[in-house]
């Protein structure tokens, strides 16, 4: 099963442990993860279910291309990393 890992910066707001979850597309994988952790959904996806403007998702080191539809294919052994842009102030 694909593995989903989150930036540690999100952990102070909502606990997002690394998990292996089912899914063959990014949408399926994230939906599976967020079904068990609904609070985290809004930290990664916006109202319309798109990746938030300043969040980034990597699938085996490559940026997810379909930021709105989350249609990127996910292999069974893929590692998905979810993190935020390194800016602030």
């Amino acid at each position, binding site marked *: 099963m694909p593995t989903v890992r989150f930036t540690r910066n999100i952990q102070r707001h909502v606990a997002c442990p690394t998990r292996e979850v089912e899914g063959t597309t990014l949408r399926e994988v994230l939906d599976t993860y967020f079904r068990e952790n609904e609070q985290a959904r*809004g930290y990664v996806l916006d109202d319309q279910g798109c990746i938030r403007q300043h969040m980034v998702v990597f699938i085996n080191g490559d940026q997810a291309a379909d930021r709105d539809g989350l249609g990127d294919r996910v292999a069974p052994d893929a590692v998905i990393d979810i993190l935020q842009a390194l800016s602030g102030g």
Partner: protein
Amino acid sequence: MSTRCHVATRKGLFTLDRGESGWSISRVSFLGDNCTVVMHDTRNGDLLAALNHGHFGIKMQRSRDRGETWSEIATPKYPEKPADYVPKAGPAEGKTPDWSLKLIWSLAPGGGDEPGFVWCGTLPGGLFQSRDGGDSWELNRPLWDHPLREQWFGGGADHPGIHSICVDPRDARHVTIGISCGGVWSTRDGGRTWNPPGPGMRAEYMPPEQQFEPNIQDPHAVVQCHANPDALWVQHHNGIFKSTDSGASWSEIKDVNPSVFGFAVAVHPKNADTAWFIPAVKDEKRYPVAGKVVVNRTRDGGKTFETLTRGLPQTHAYDLVYRHGFDVDETGSRLIFGSTTGSVWISEDEGNSWQTVSSHLPPVYAVRFEKPV
């Protein structure tokens, strides 16, 4: 008389308490986080605070023990945009906004006969309502689906926003809202139908044929007199306006020194003829005229104004006060304002004199007295 005030800033929520020797900071919540607005619910004591976490989006927090502890509650969420959605009318400026929460800009408790009801104004122009104190939110569709809503546009921001919500103390179904830029709208039936703005506001910066168009006006803040709810005061981008008929019509008040420009306004809760303003250089430069922080007060419905300065810095002071950075307590005697440069002043004599509470806070977005439950 209020003895506690909440100050929402770029780096947290500060609680001020009135002790025997004066006002001081008693607590800091969400230190380091951007707190855009705070609400005290006079019906049950709840506190609601909106946080903007940037990368992670907008979140809402609630405290039910006067700020000792906080819990994350639901955040207003725009509904899924229909795939075949076609705007009915284009905006007067820019593009039609996304259906996605950009900012929580205003919060207001419903009426005393509506326990748990809370209004929430947002960018990009959606008005939300909760019937359970913030555990869930629903977009007010009659306003969102109104064809004139799509003509609103952002004033200084990329999207239009609802910044003022006035619930009539006589009848909670009568609600008046202020939009930048969309004028002042109202409902008489709790939000089932909405009345577009009445005439009388003027935006001299618009093309000549649009200057008096009610639906493109930029009221920076709208306040309502508690004892005379038909009386509304507006600090507008273009100047000062007032209404004595619940916003059905507006009159402009001109030639107020040192400036009619500003963001904030407060009205005396017991006397609609008394209102306070914090003027600034008009209009894109936005700093206190001549570097002097002053408060303007009228006691005669806007015929004359006094400029109040006692206790306020009068040399090289560049404090700008945002639209939610000013409040008056339920007696009308205590006032507070906070600035973009982190200064907070309080008056206990209707603005005649001011005391500095801090000069070193983060930029202040909103101040709200905690009024008796």
